[in-house]
């Protein structure tokens, strides 16, 4: 009797759990639903006073094509992909070398050097922004991807070194010793032994850094002002400036911008949801 009662109670609490979660899922989806409902109407639909929840006679998919082509979102995404796909491996390469030195090579003041790099993870980009802008314009680095890569790599070192150093430390040093006896150089130890073992940490860092670069706004807005070179966040701001009266086009643009991130997230969600913990704790 008691047993049945208990099971009954459990089922009820499960039902409440799912109902509660479902309500939250709906609430969390509202912003996306809102822009979708806005994006499928034409300008004329709005002028005729159509409400948000009414569907137009003809779904206006043209907004999506226009956002992609006239709004240049396709180009911004191509630029964003190009910037991230070059910056991220480059950054990881540099960070891995540093983390390797900090965990496996006989170097003085290791902790102090590590703390020095950690500081950069927390400094606001604003603190460096005025001198960067001035120096970049003097060195003709404004509107160059080299300038953007350089700043991104610099601001990424703190986090990258922390993550990689944390992982490298868990790799037993006997492996290095054995490799040294076999005549491996330091570079060979790093590339043939450490990096292959650190694959899980590197793939998590890669995917997080990729999205971080894709989403970066502060530095990109200071360094790139040529429309043809902008990445997605700066391009979106531009897009807003050019089309601020065209609500449906803007919504279509916002909706399109969600899709690549969603795809990357769906493929690599394990890296975010499970990889982050190790990363932050170092």
């Amino acid at each position, binding site marked *: 009797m008691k047993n049945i009662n208990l099971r009954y109670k459990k089922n009820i609490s499960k039902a409440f759990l799912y109902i509660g979660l479902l309500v939250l899922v709906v609430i969390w989806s509202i*912003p996306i639903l*809102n822009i979708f409902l806005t994006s499928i109407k034409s300008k004329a639909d709005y002028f005729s006073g159509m409400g948000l929840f009414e569907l137009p006679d003809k779904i206006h998919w043209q907004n999506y094509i226009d956002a992609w082509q006239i709004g240049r979102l396709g180009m911004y995404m191509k630029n964003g992909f190009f910037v991230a796909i070059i910056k991220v491996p480059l950054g990881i390469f540099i960070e891995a070398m540093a983390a390797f030195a900090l965990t496996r090579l006989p170097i003085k003041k290791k*902790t102090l050097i590590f703390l020095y790099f950690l500081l950069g993870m927390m400094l606001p980009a604003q603190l460096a922004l*005025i001198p960067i802008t001035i120096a970049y314009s003097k060195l003709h680095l404004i509107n160059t991807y080299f300038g953007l890569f350089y700043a991104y790599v*610099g601001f990424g070192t703190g986090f990258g070194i922390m993550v990689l150093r944390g992982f490298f430390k868990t790799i037993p040093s006997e492996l290095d010793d054995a490799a040294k006896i076999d005549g491996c150089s330091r570079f060979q130890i790093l590339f043939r032994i450490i990096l292959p073992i650190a694959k899980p940490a590197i793939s998590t860092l890669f995917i997080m850094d990729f999205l971080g670069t894709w989403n970066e706004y502060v530095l990109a807005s200071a360094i790139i002002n040529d429309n043809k070179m902008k990445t997605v966040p700066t391009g979106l*701001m531009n897009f807003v400036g050019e089309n601020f009266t065209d609500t449906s086009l803007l919504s279509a643009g916002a909706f399109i911008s969600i899709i690549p991130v969603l795809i990357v*997230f769906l493929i690599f969600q394990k890296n*975010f949801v499970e990889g982050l913990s190790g990363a932050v704790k170092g």
Partner: protein
Amino acid sequence: MGKKWNKISNYFFLLPAFLIYTSVVIGPSLYTIYLSFFKWNGVKPKVLVGLKNYINLFSKDKLFWLSLKNNLIWVVLTLVIIMALALAFALLFNREFKGRAFFRSYFYFPYTLSSILVAITWKKMYDPSIGILNESLRALSLGDFTSTYTANPNIALYCIFVAATWQGIGQPMILFLTGLQTVPKEIVEAAKIDGAGPISSFFLITIPMMKETFFIVIATLIISSMKVYDIVLGITGGGPANSTHTLATYMRAQSFLYTHYGIGAAIAVVMFLIMLLIIVPYIYFLARTD
């Protein structure tokens, strides 16, 4: 190659990271501190004014005080609301049930979007005429309760914060979840046998055992709250009537709209000094837990 060369060449592994990082992060940051003692518009020669930029900010500049206040409101709201929600979600997802992984990812997802994109999306929510909030109120015949949201200086900041909450639950939630998994189940079970209810065992066992997690979450949330920029810029740009400026957006306005580089630099330094109160213990903690 001699032994000495070998010793020195160890440092070559650090060199690229060190040079790039120092030249683009530390160097410019130090130069900003230097600039904050000057009056400079970027064209004419710099004029040394000592602490005048700081004195003016604190004694005369109402907008600076408002930005500072907004930033502190933001920190408090983040620590109360975002942290509480993240913890609640984490406790929920720490239980075993079907679809747990899906729900966890679902609420994490907005965190992967850029703040600019979130800002644009939420701006549409708050649109007084066709945004879903007012349209829903009208559909429910609650038209009297419609609002202008981000166009109303009294509530605009809080409207932006709601958008930031939607976006920002994910990361602290994951940190809390990881922390919860380090609390041994046996201890919680033992407390249950000793007659502790779920609430008392949560406060007496789970929370004290998650001290480190709380520290990490609080530190990262304060640091990111002090930096808040993109989402404000994307929704209101600091308006209406300058009511939503934060230190970061006000620093941008002073430096790049009015080209008062000295004042902008001073604002960035104030921002950094406040953050230092968190950064120093946090770095110490990260180094010690090693």
